């Protein structure tokens, strides 16, 4: 494990820089995009009212001062008070996280459980009907816009066939359509990448050697192919995991799913700076942590990476 601690330290440092950059960009962009006060007050509110509310929200201070206060507060885990909900932004976002995790994890599980075996089978039966059919479907999954898929599912499965609820959060039946919609892109990406990664390994010399040794196909695949094809598959899977947990704006909006993606978009419309900052910060943090775990996994999968 020589060199592991500096490796870890470097990774943590990079993660912190990424988080600082993300929060700064969000801070600047949100302030460039306009003032939340006209959206809060009735249209006939007098100017004195507008100035009063601006002062109350601390928006009358200079941008550098606001930025300083913002950074100092974040360091203490304080994201400020939501302008829209009038309660701590962190508490607002926490309230939305369970729904996002529920949807994200289900979509992810669905994607991995379905996509990995399909990718593997397609690679092993290359150019068969199964390969063409699944990869054709994967292409559709990857290229169809999420809002289109979502509304198509609602119309066909929910409304015409009367099988599942159209929207909202409730028991497991409410989860199926949004998870399918959200997972479709990841499923397609993982299936296609698994297929190509495995195909590449299957062409390698050591696989020919393994077969020449007379090993059964099962052993060739399980022991020699999968492990060697794992790095790209783990990379894409990790990336997809981060994306799915970061909140899915379109899927959550189409299915009225109360997750942080929908919260983020509503908060952007409402110019609710604290909530947008907190949501983006948490999403970025999740992404960074997952990437970090993926990096560690590389080390487990391929000892050569650890020593480098």
């Amino acid at each position, binding site marked *: 494990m020589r060199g592991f601690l500096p490796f870890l330290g470097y990774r943590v440092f990079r993660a912190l820089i990424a988080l600082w950059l993300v929060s700064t960009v969000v801070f600047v962009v949100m302030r460039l995009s306009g003032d939340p006060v006209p959206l809060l007050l009735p249209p006939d509110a007098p100017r004195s009212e507008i100035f009063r509310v601006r002062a109350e929200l601390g928006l009358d201070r200079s941008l550098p001062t606001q930025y300083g206060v913002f950074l100092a507060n974040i360091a203490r885990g304080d994201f400020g008070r939501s302008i829209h909900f009038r309660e701590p932004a962190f508490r607002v976002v926490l309230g939305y996280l369970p729904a996002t995790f529920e949807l994200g994890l289900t979509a992810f599980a669905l994607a991995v459980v379905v996509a990995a075996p399909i990718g593997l089978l397609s690679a092993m039966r290359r150019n068969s009907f199964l390969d063409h059919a699944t990869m054709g479907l994967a292409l559709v999954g990857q290229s169809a816009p999420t809002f289109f898929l979502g509304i198509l599912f*609602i119309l066909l499965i929910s409304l015409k066939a009367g099988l599942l609820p*159209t929207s909202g959060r409730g028991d497991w039946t409410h989860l199926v359509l949004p998870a399918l919609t959200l997972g479709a892109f990841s499923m397609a990406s993982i299936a296609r990448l698994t297929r190509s990664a495995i195909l590449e390994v299957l062409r390698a010399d050591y696989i020919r050697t393994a077969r020449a040794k007379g090993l059964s196909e099962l052993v060739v695949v399980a022991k020699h192919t999968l492990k060697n094809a794992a790095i790209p598959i783990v990379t894409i899977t990790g990336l997809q995991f981060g994306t799915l947990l970061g909140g899915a704006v379109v899927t959550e909006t189409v299915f009225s799913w109360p997750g942080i993606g929908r919260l983020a978009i509503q908060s952007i419309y409402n110019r609710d700076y604290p909530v947008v900052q907190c949501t983006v910060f948490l999403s970025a943090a999740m992404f960074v942590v997952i990437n970090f775990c993926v990096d560690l996994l590389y080390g487990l999968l391929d000892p050569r990476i650890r020593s480098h």
Partner: protein
Amino acid sequence: MIELTRREVLKGMAGLGAAGALPHVLSGSAQAQTTQKREFVLAQGGDISKFDPHFSTSSNDIRVSFNIFDNLTSRHPNGRLYPGLATEWKIEGQTTWRFKLRPGVKWHNGDPFTSADAKFSIERTYDAAAKTMVATALATIDRIEAPDPLTLVIHTKKPDPLLPARLGFYGGQIVPKKYLEAVGNDAFNAKPVGTGPVRFVSWVKDDKLVLDANPGYWGGRIDADRVIVRSIPETAPRIAALLKGEVDAITQLPPDHFERVAGNPSTKVVGALYAGLYVLAVNSKRPPLDSPLVKQALSLAMDRDLIVKELWRGRGSVPSGPIAKGDNHFDASLPPLAYNPTEARERLKKGGYKNEEVIIETTVGYTANDKTMAEAIVAMWRDAGINAKVEVIEYSVRAQKNRDKSFKGLWWSDPTSTLGDPDGMMWRLLGPGGPQDYWREPRFDELGMAARFSVDERFRGEAYREMTKIFLEHLPWVPVIQPYEDYGVQTYVEWTPNPNQQFEIRRFNFKFRRA
């Protein structure tokens, strides 16, 4: 209430708009279903942000707060003012109003409602320390007295003929003094207590709000044990939820989805002619819009009948001036605004129009059909020889421009008549210092000011007639349509909507059709 079959609907579509201000029910089936449901589920286009009625005026919030809370006065779907928590009121002299309060009313927590609550609530709205979002709603009030638990005396700064109307809209919801002072603003907002027909049970943000019927409601227990409010932001899934029977009613039904809901056997469309207008507000300070003749040409070159027929499927009517149909002092003898492109060209010539650019800054979805209408109108104007152009802006940019008064030409506005009177719409927005103060005319201002502070309705009527004349010459707004506000409901729901976007569930306007 008028019941129509589908064929009649299709036949009478274009003419419907002119049928009057009464709410309509348009059903896809002649045979309405019945239900044994005790739970009423409503889906609206956005979630609630606050329950404290003095901290929000957004339509998603007031749909709920007008049901948890009551006002002293209550505007019913027919547009008239009725007793609410006050049973009667009268003016004494010019500036003193005496309100008799309803005896025996209890807050949801069991405390009795008294004049101390009413005094506290109204004073809270304009109390600088309370920092409410409705500070201007009741700003005509000078001081309030509560001589006994069931009497409230309000003194206004100047004569205010519309005080009872003001008390019936936002800002006027009465909140409990004792409970609010005991728990503070934040706890009150999280767990509101009112006197209304439903009481707060639970709320999961962006998911659902649960309200239970108030069994001892003074206006009679409503015909449901539980009311659930869901937020479904996208139009297509909101309609799908209605068609599949997952919800009993939906708000914000756009005209192009009218047929799907009206044509479905188990659902119907319920609408009310909007208490307000959709207008193109004009920055009359920027040439060529500083010329009344050019603005008259813009109005004459607009084929409003076609807009109502094609873009609104007949769900609206052509305005005749700045006062909405259904409001006090609406002049029914005025003809709808005319379409005459030849005359428009004449007036452009007379007005010295030199092909300057005329820009409509439109939002997408701020009001129903805003962008589509802007595109259609610009095409009509181009046909009449006007160098017109559409620019698309985002909601918050619009809010910002509204504040800075920096619109380039014309923009969409959907003034709501908050008081059922021109003072609460035309004068509120177009008056000096108002949010749409881009044009001044001494006589218009003189009349508007006099009408605001007069308790003589005859005088006010004459003032508004003369103001309408001045308005039609100068057109600080180009009125486009008075549309229907449509809701989709199950056929077993009998509910009459309020024209001013108050979504009230009361004994007088809501019941389930039982077997």
